[in-house]
């Protein structure tokens, strides 16, 4: 394989989109060619740069408007436009600063959650308690946290519980539950929340999928490199327990 052929497949190689039999000759070439190695490194560095740009979360007002729209569609009622507009005008002034700080807080939490996930995989400190038995994992948290996280095994739907540990999110100790799907690890972080229930929010951070929701006074984050469709399946299973 020569440099031109490597150039042709460079992006698919860096993006891990090449079939295994096409990867081997490239690796072989890279072992001998410093300039192609450099180009791979540059591509990877560029990817990190692009991933460092800010993620634009949907503004809270927009979320509220959209779910309002959906509900109106369901009930078939007509829009009471002027009333909605009046409410909007009233709430815009006071709402902005609140929304901003809330967004910043949730950003920090999401960063912590992703960092916690990465750390757990890299340091191989995935478990404080290694067990597939929810009746062993749940009592383990007793006395270590000031709340009792819900712990369920989802092996019956293809996501076995494999253990748990203590972790930190936004400066407070949280329960981390570890699930497995084939070779993929899913970390679920749980801590008490002020809001009783919110809708699920999903986003990708540094190549990981993060889903966040609140339910029964608990805040949940699920993080994994598992593809979004299967992770959603997992989240739905966890939510319906």
């Amino acid at each position: 394989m020569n440099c031109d052929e490597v150039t042709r497949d460079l992006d698919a190689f860096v993006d891990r989109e090449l079939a295994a039999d096409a990867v081997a000759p490239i690796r072989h070439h890279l072992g001998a060619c410093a300039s192609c190695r450099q180009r791979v490194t540059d591509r990877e560095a560029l990817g990190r740069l692009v991933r460092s740009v800010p993620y634009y979360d949907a503004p809270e007002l927009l979320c509220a408007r959209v779910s309002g729209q959906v509900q109106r569609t369901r009930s078939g009622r007509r829009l009471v436009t002027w009333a909605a507009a009046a409410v909007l005008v009233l709430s815009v002034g006071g709402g902005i600063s609140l929304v901003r700080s809330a967004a910043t807080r949730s950003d920090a939490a999401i960063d912590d959650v992703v960092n916690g996930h990465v750390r757990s995989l890299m340091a191989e400190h995935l478990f404080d308690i290694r067990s597939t038995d929810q009746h062993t994992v749940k009592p383990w948290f007793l006395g270590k946290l000031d709340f009792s996280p819900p712990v369920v095994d989802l092996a019956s739907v293809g996501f076995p519980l494999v253990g748990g540990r203590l972790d930190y999110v936004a400066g407070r100790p949280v329960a981390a539950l570890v699930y497995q799907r084939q070779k993929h690890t899913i970390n679920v972080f749980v801590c008490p929340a002020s809001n009783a229930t919110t809708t699920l929010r999903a986003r990708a951070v540094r190549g990981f999928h993060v889903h966040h929701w609140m339910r029964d006074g608990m805040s949940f984050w699920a993080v994994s490199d598992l593809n979004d469709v299967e992770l959603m399946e997992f989240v739905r299973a966890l939510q319906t327990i």
Partner: protein
Amino acid sequence: MPSRVFEEIVLPHLDAAFNYARWLTRNDADAEDVIQDACVRAVRFFPSLRDDDARGWLFAIVRNTWYSRLSRRAGAAEALPLDSRTDEPADSALDPEARLLQQFAVARVREALEQLPVDFREVLVLREIEGMSYKEIAAIVRVPIGTVMSRLARARDRLSAVLKPPSLSMERVP
């Protein structure tokens, strides 16, 4: 139509959809309009969602909404970036000088990305920020997978040419 299900399946992807729309439109106001219109369409088309890939499905609707708005504006130039974001997140573990440098780098990358033609911009956002596979991107952008690959390659070439000095030359292979 089971709206409860719509809320559970589609709305979780609202942030991601907004982020995508924001990169397409390059300003908050247009992105919000696109998302609102797209959600109205999404509710209507919801019964046509066959598989479980709600994110890709919603992104395709967002994209169509954006392009049909563009063509309605017939020939109008893309709106200028209305930049309201100065609060770049910085790594608090860095010292103040390194943090400044990082913020500078992030601002430069964002600007460079915004200046790319929209076809290039969107494949980079879908690949790098949303972590989508070529197949997923191909379905949203409605081009063959090979086109996704060549477009990504050209987008990255353009972007690294713009960013070349000095941020990319820092990492050297021994």
